[in-house]
């Protein structure tokens, strides 16, 4: 039962993040790029003031998978790096924290571009 509730929390919180994004798209005509930028910056700010981590503890992947979680990761990475390296940490923390996700996207993107051919010409947005 515990594990079931864990998935429910992830589903609801993650779903809500996406629903908010959809409201923004439908009402404000914000482009996908702007939505993603807004989410990352919002996540960084929420992570910086310490409001995001309780949500991660509550919803797990429901909070870490949306791009706000990416922003929270940046804030955490900065904090950890500054604690460890002082001033230099301001410059190293961000990229260190997001290295796994960004590297994965670049490498897999490159591999897919090498292997696949675009068959469906219809583009998203």
């Amino acid at each position, binding site marked *: 039962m515990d594990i079931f509730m864990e998935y429910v929390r992830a589903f609801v919180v993650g779903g809500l993040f996406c629903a*908010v994004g959809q409201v923004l798209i439908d009402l404000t005509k914000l482009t996908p790029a702007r939505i993603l930028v807004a989410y990352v910056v919002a996540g960084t700010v929420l992570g910086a003031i310490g409001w995001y981590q309780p949500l991660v503890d509550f919803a797990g*992947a429901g909070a870490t*998978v949306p791009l706000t*979680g*990416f922003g929270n990761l940046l804030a955490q*990475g900065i904090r950890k790096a500054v*604690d460890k390296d002082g001033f230099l940490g301001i410059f190293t923390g961000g990229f260190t924290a997001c290295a796994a996700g960004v590297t994965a*996207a670049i490498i897999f993107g490159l591999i897919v571009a090498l292997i696949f051919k675009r068959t469906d010409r219809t583009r998203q947005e």
Partner: protein
Amino acid sequence: MNISKQEYEQVAKKHAGSSKMYITIPKAFLIGGFICCIGEFFMNLYQYIGNDNEKSAAFTSITLVLISALLTGFGLYERIAKHGGAGTLVPITGFANAVVSPALEFKTEGYVLGTGAKMFVIAGPVIVYGIAAAFVYGIIYWIMGLFS
């Protein structure tokens, strides 16, 4: 055809299909929630095989990015995104799709200025402003550390 901008907008709106919010928002909620549940599954899996929270989260991100990259390669992510809207955009899979899709699409313009450059059309701004926000926080956090 000679039509004004307003007329065009009306026509475009009529043919936009399921842009009604009582359809798009629940769809985004369901599909986005489902993607997060997949994330939760991998998170549990990686923890189960003995990784700490931080490593499990990183492996989960990598896994979701990989899945999204493959689906994008097969042209399936776009199909899901047609229904998912923000539900497929906001999760990290949407970020991955935003990298992989132009990388593949602009292959015709070469591997350097096509694939290499265009993969950051959306990811670039995300990284720039994410890093910038984190940098500002870093300065504040560092200064606060000086006085504590």
